């Protein structure tokens, strides 16, 4: 998977309450959730974001609540991949489970500016800042996560496991 898009930057500790405020969680309709994505931290984000764009953030992206509505809102808003210095653990699980590509790459996250063009190669584990002419190595996923991603997410992984006889 290779993604190329325009960067939208955010700082550290971006919490799920600003990714999708709880007042909108009386639904799980993806389009409705996406229309409020990042509303409390950047009210113009949903107007600016274009299909394929890339979110770049600092440490601990997605901290706070376990709401899977957060990766759903980000994906449905058009974002192709999130690059961050680190991710909060529940968001990390949710993103993998939902099929939102995420990349841990502190150096790329630190260097990127709003409007930069980024090229992210998930398989090769590289993040290239095309605007600045710099290339970074992303942290590789552990083998188990690579397997989950390869099989199309946790649900498909477990369905095939259960179909094969149920037991692990």
């Amino acid at each position, binding site marked *: 998977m290779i993604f190329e898009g325009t960067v939208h930057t955010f700082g550290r500790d971006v919490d799920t309450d600003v990714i999708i*405020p709880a*007042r909108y*969680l009386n639904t799980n309709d993806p389009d409705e959730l996406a229309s409020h994505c990042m509303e409390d931290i950047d009210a113009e984000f949903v107007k600016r974001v274009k299909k394929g764009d890339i979110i770049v953030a600092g440490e601990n992206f997605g*901290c706070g609540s*376990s*709401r899977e509505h957060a990766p759903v809102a980000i994906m449905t808003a058009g974002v192709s991949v999130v690059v961050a210095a680190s991710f909060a653990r529940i968001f990390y*699980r949710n993103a993998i*489970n939902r099929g939102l590509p995420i990349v841990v790459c502190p150096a790329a996250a630190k260097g990127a500016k709003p409007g930069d063009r980024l090229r992210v190669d998930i398989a090769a584990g590289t993040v290239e800042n095309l605007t600045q002419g710099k290339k970074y190595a992303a942290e590789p996923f*552990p083998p188990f996560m690579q397997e989950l991603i390869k099989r199309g997410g946790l649900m498909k992984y477990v369905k095939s496991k259960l179909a094969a006889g149920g037991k692990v």
Partner: protein
Amino acid sequence: MAATIAEKILAAAAGEAAVRPGQIIEAPVDLALTNDITGPLAMAEFEKAGFDRVFDPQKIVLVPDHFTPNKDVKSAGQVKKMRDFAHKFGIEQFFEVGRMGIEHALLPELGLVAPGDIVIGADSHTCTYGALAAFSTGVGSTDFAVAMAWGHVWLRVPESIRFVYHGLPGRYVTGKDFILDTIGRIGVDGALYKAMEFTGEAIEAMSIEGRFTMCNMAIEAGGKAGIVGHDATTAAYLASRPKGSHARTSGRVLASDPDADYAEVIEIDAAAVPLTVSKPHLPANTAPAEDLASTTIDQVVIGSCTNGRLEDLRQAAEILRGRSVHPNVRAIILPGTQQVCLDAAKDGTMQTLIEAGCAFSTPTCGPCLGGHMGVLAAGERCVSTTNRNFVGRMGDVTSEVYLASPYVAAASAIAGHIATPRMVAKAASGKTAAGRGGRR
């Protein structure tokens, strides 16, 4: 091989002699929990995947608590989806308004969690049950949906950080002050992916309620779990539970080995921990309560999954007894469960709080996440015993949340600004003296 309590529980669950941090295991789930925010999304995924049965209806718990009593038509629809799902799949542990509680107050109270259990919940504060020496952690909707079908969860064995609280805390200093102070020391990602193990003399002396509060907020430091070893306090609490979860504890792993490996050991002088407040907009943004007396407030919330147990409400009542909530302040009490309501009604706590001018709510997460029952207007400030003070968390994006203990919240409600019980007592004795002086 020496191991931490978290490693021992996970090894036992995975059927292995030992596990090491970083290892991925697939563990059977003793209890899986969801609520009215994460549940409907999980149920949609479960049905979309075509599953026709759940692995064990007795091990699934559904608690609509966030937007209940249903705050609007959409919320009512989400809860109805959960109710229909419960009926369809034979899940008896679906808790209706009037017989429910805030999930993390309710499950331990009912005796549904035992030491050594693996509990996952589609709610980030599922880490609360570590106070009972269980390994419990928050997950998302898909993880929960998968657990309902599979009965297992994949977990990365976490490194552990051992926190040692030496000595005993000062007057009015509670588990809430400990955990806020600790998050202030290590930051909101200071325990990212790790288990936070709470030990030391102050933890041994702490009530089970205080331990629930501490484990509840492990997630606010990025922790995967908060955990306290099993001791006489745990045993006494479990023995008093209606479903007798203590019966499942025999032979379970209950404590860390003394020579276990930790990623870090952090030693804290309990006596030096102040009454602590987390300022906007991060739980790690801590300061002593007495340094914030110039901060005027509009609302106080006392309760929630963090501080909504009977001990918490009694602490608030201890400060508010015979006093009044400041004219500029709305004080809202959020009891954790129906049982807490009943106990507070029987022992006079509810009457004390109502006489002081507090609103006594039904159990709900409502105001904590800016859902309903106490949403903040633009620019308003709230002192809250809840767990998060992110931007817009309790209402308007320009509102502010200060996290504190029930003692500090109650004192602040009286003062109209952030205050400690001592400041309130001093102000009262000053007024009395002035009053006497005036009569002379």
